[in-house]
């Protein structure tokens, strides 16, 4: 009889659902009771949360997407880095146009959203499933934020495994890239042609993460970015302040931009920049697809390193 009781107890433990709840504090400062091992994660930000969830091999059932000019929906970053499309997972909403009923119908057991677009909807989302708010632009390094997220969804071990491989890749890149580049300075920018300004980026996905990890130094002006923020806007007259051994930027393929679009943009914002930016003269103004370098992703980091090695040497 006693043996039977032990056997029943052991069987109960073995077959009990693993979804034991635990408390998590998200980037909005909210403490949320979430499943220990969520089985139906719904992401409301494609090129951060969807990408990370996929890379961590977590059970992603749906994601927010964007509309292509032909009317089809796609996931920024998810499509380019992992070939992810809406045949594989469900469309949760179009980015910036949340459909709460559609989200509810997908029956998620955990919703992850970015605080900028969905902070005001938290109360409503919470009526559907536990909701965690992620903040990609709070000024902290992307992989620190990624580590937070992996912990929230119970994938810390997978994150550590990916991080270890990344550290090895960084070491290899340090050996292959020229010492002159690695000991130099860099600035990461976005050229805003529309209003003739420049965005100086302190943290911008793997673009800044990888360069920091390689040991490059940021230009002094980056220290002026207010704490808690990841970028600041500067006028064209300060373009001399962003000059460095390497200037990196990004382009958005869906807007028809290419790696060379940055040169046309700089010409319009600061005509004659070619004469005084040493990065231009050294052919060290490089631009990369935003789909690959904005998401906090180890695969994106590896792609960026490949392209940096090919372009910078």
């Amino acid at each position, binding site marked *: 009889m006693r043996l039977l009781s032990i056997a029943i107890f052991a069987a109960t433990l073995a077959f009990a659902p693993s979804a034991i709840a635990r408390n998590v504090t998200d980037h909005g400062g909210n403490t949320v009771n979430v499943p220990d091992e969520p089985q139906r994660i719904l992401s409301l930000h494609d090129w951060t949360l969807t990408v990370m969830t996929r890379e961590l091999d977590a059970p992603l059932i749906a994601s927010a997407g964007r509309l292509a000019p032909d009317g089809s929906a796609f996931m920024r970053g998810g499509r380019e880095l992992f070939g992810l499309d809406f045949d594989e997972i469900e469309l949760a909403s179009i980015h910036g*146009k*949340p*459909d709460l009923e559609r989200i509810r119908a997908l029956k998620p057991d955990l919703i992850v959203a970015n605080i*900028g677009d969905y902070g005001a909807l938290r109360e409503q989302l919470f009526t559907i499933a536990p909701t965690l708010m992620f903040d990609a632009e709070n000024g902290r390094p992307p992989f620190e934020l990624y580590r937070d997220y992996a912990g929230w969804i119970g994938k810390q071990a997978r994150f550590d495994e990916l991080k270890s491989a990344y550290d090895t890749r960084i070491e290899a890149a340090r050996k292959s890239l020229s010492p002159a580049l690695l000991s130099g300075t860099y600035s990461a920018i976005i050229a805003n042609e529309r209003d003739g300004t420049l965005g100086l980026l302190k943290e911008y996905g793997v673009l800044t993460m990888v360069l920091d990890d390689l040991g490059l130094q940021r230009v002094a002006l980056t220290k002026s970015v207010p704490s808690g923020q990841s970028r600041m806007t500067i006028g064209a007259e300060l373009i001399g302040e962003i000059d460095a051994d390497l200037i990196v930027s990004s382009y958005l393929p869906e807007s028809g931009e290419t790696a060379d679009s940055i040169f046309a943009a700089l010409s319009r914002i600061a005509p004659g920049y070619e004469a005084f930016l040493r990065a231009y003269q050294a052919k060290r103004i490089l631009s990369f697809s935003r789909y690959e370098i904005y998401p906090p992703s180890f695969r994106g980091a590896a792609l960026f390193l490949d392209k940096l090695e090919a372009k910078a040497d």
Partner: protein
Amino acid sequence: MRGEITLRLGRAVHLPIRLRPAAVISSLFVLLLATSIAGLQFGSTAIALADILHWLFPFKASDPETGSIMGLRWPRIVAALLGGAMVAASGHLLQIVARNGLADPGLLGISQGSMAAIVIGAAVFGLAPSMLVWLGLAGGFATAILVMTLAYRLTSSSGLILVGLAVGIVLIAAIEIVMVQGGILQFARWLSWSHGSLTAVSASNAAMLILWGSFLLPVSLIASSKVMPLLLGHEQAAGIGASPRKLSLLLTLLAAMLVAPVVAAIGPISFLGLIAAHIARRLVGERPGEVMPVTMLVGALILLAADTAGRTLFLPVVVPAGILISIAGVLIFLAAARLARPRR
């Protein structure tokens, strides 16, 4: 009198009821009821009418699935009904004060005043949502006073609109400066809220609007029956013993109070005050006591219809109600401006 019946309650009470406004108000009530039920029924998940009725009158326990969907739909329907009525009433009151049929809380800068106060309160001082309504009220009222003061010596009634537009533009620029200082995250939040969407309306937002609406809408109805002298102009109104300045000030305060909670809960809904009052006057004429209830019902109907259309017709894209109303509003504004005759 033709077109009027008298309701007799005993020998002492005789209530004259004009048939046209009564018919219009009854029809709008029926239309509003039908649109509300349609709003509850349609969405990403269609629900049978029987389930809706069962949920509305739960004599026995309602289906949890239906209850869950209704939990998402009823707050925005209540917010659309009350928010639409309040913004429309505000527009009608401002049109009386300005003696200009093109006045609107957005065109006179009052919505922007509320928005600026709410944005600064939230982004700069981190105030709680319950405080933001009062701040929005103060901002709306201060802007109304500023606009009226600046336009005081202008003889043309359209001068008030021009001053309101100018003040509104300055306030929007100030809001954008605050938002840009706060980084892209803050700017994204502002952009989403400024479209005037009911997607984020929660049960607590709806409860706040019920609280404000249950006080302000009856006050607006009572006030509308006292404003007839203002339609004559300030000098003539003073000549028959009214206090036009005092009355204008009180009505402006009431208009700002009507808009502030809606801006705090939903965001700005441009042109609604203009459209609703314009349609109401077309339906029942110029008597403020009759125009006001019709304006409220039309405003509620427009916002509810725009929200229901925005979340059902263009799926998977959900279009904010404020954008649909703005498109309709611009067309009606242009038509009204073209048809409007200058007052002497």
